[in-house]
């Protein structure tokens, strides 16, 4: 099978010994964190360990999925990724109101799902439609960015809704709908969630070289093909981020108001 051929032809193999040497890099981060008492040293260590375990497991899982090559396995993998991303986005919030998981899940499903379908069907022409070699890495990138955007958007919206309580109630008291009253918090939450993507569009290739492109180039692809893929990736991230953020924000906004257009009390 083609995919396995690629996996069997590493250019410069990275051994487990090489990875052990790489641990030194994490130790530097842990050292800096401990030195200034950021409280992150432990998190760095745990994070590094999780990186090793999670990526290794995913590696084996990908080998398995590529080898079995069944559409339902691929689709299941995509949904599993979606569920994990939704939970991760919600876990990052200081408060986790009931319903936020559902809102985030719906946002990521629609934002990432529609983007993946668009890219795989209309741009890359993936064949067969479920080809895991394309769908899984593409969805991983889409989802990672959409998840960050959704988490940022939800966090910012909550913050804005709290700091602008007086302003929101002043709008409501004049007869504004909750949609009108929350326009500024919504605008700010969307901006906050989309700015990182806009920034990355601005500096890509100059300040940053994206992981996928560098990966392809190191793995021996024609740089011009790698770059075309990267351009598609950058565009699809824009769509995934914008769609996911806007769905999260609009869905989450509703939870701050009662049906009688009243701002809910902070403690409820």
């Amino acid at each position, binding site marked *: 099978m083609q995919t396995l051929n690629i996996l069997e032809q590493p250019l410069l193999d990275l051994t487990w010994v090489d990875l052990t040497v790489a641990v030194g890099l994490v130790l530097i981060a842990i050292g800096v964190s401990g030195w200034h008492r950021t409280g992150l040293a432990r998190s760095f260590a745990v994070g590094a360990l999780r990186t090793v375990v999670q990526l290794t497991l995913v590696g084996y899982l990908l080998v398995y999925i590529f080898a079995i090559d069944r559409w339902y396995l691929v689709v299941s993998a995509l949904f599993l990724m979606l569920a994990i991303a939704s939970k991760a986005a919600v876990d990052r919030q200081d408060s986790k109101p009931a319903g936020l998981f559902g809102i985030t899940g719906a946002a990521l499903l629609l934002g990432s799902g529609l983007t993946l379908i668009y890219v795989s069907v209309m741009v890359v022409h993936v064949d067969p439609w479920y080809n895991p070699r394309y769908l899984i890495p593409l969805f991983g990138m889409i989802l990672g960015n959409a998840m960050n955007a959704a988490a940022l958007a939800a966090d910012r919206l909550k913050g804005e809704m709290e700091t602008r309580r*007086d*302003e929101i*109630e*002043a*709008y*409501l*008291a*004049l*007869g*504004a*709908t909750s949609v*009108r009253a929350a326009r*500024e918090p919504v605008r700010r939450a969307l901006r906050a969630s989309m700015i990182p993507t806009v920034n990355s569009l601005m500096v890509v290739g100059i300040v940053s070289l994206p992981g996928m492109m560098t990966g392809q180039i190191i793995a021996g692809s024609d740089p011009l093909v790698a770059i075309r893929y990267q351009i598609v990736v950058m565009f699809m991230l824009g769509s995934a981020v914008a769609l996911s953020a806007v769905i999260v924000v609009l869905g989450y906004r509703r939870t701050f108001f*009662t049906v*009688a*257009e*009243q*701002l809910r*009390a902070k*403690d409820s």
Partner: protein
Amino acid sequence: MESRSDTASFELRGVGQVRAGRTVLQDVDVTIPRHLITVLVGPSGGGKTSLLRLLNRLDDPVQGDILFDGRPIVDYAVTDLRRQVALVFQTPVMFPGTVSDNLAVAAELAAGDDGRFDQQASEVMLLAELDPSLLERPGGELSVGQKQRVNLARALMTSPQVLLLDEPTSALDPETARALMKTIGSLSEVRRLTIIVATHRISETKEYAHHALVLRDGRVVESGDSERVLSGLPDPHATSP
């Protein structure tokens, strides 16, 4: 439901309210007369703000009924009700932009752009006794007293029948406060508004009030003609923090 809607603006029947786990209003049964100035007096924490919020439906009571013009308040579309029953908060809130932008928000909510904005804006500026030259000033640059008047003018842009004012003078020096109360007094005459003012500064309101309610610990302990109610009320008892 029997009501005294011919003279009453609001009727409250057995109203109780809880906020943040605390009972803030209990068994409130009162009638608020139309076209008059009613003052709500009593110590801070007595329930004045909570009561005003109910009338604008920023909150709903946990108990009892509220009638507006003889109809249950919940029967009105809430955004329509709020345009008819304007609430001006204790701390003025300025929307982004100029004074004119602030008035435009209210105009847009009231009617959409009906082409009469300039005329309406100068009218409410006049009513709130604000210099029309302030229209183009950014809201953030105004003094607290001016902001309070802009909030008043903004509330008037929706042509309300009722004006609810929560401690409108609390952030003002005595002279500015007296001037604002005078403005409020003339508003009631010029526009025939029903005005409800929550205050703990009785002396400022005495001159303009027609009707008074005394709220203490969430209960109405006295209500009626303001002269009678307020004269029997030693000022210190109402002005405690």
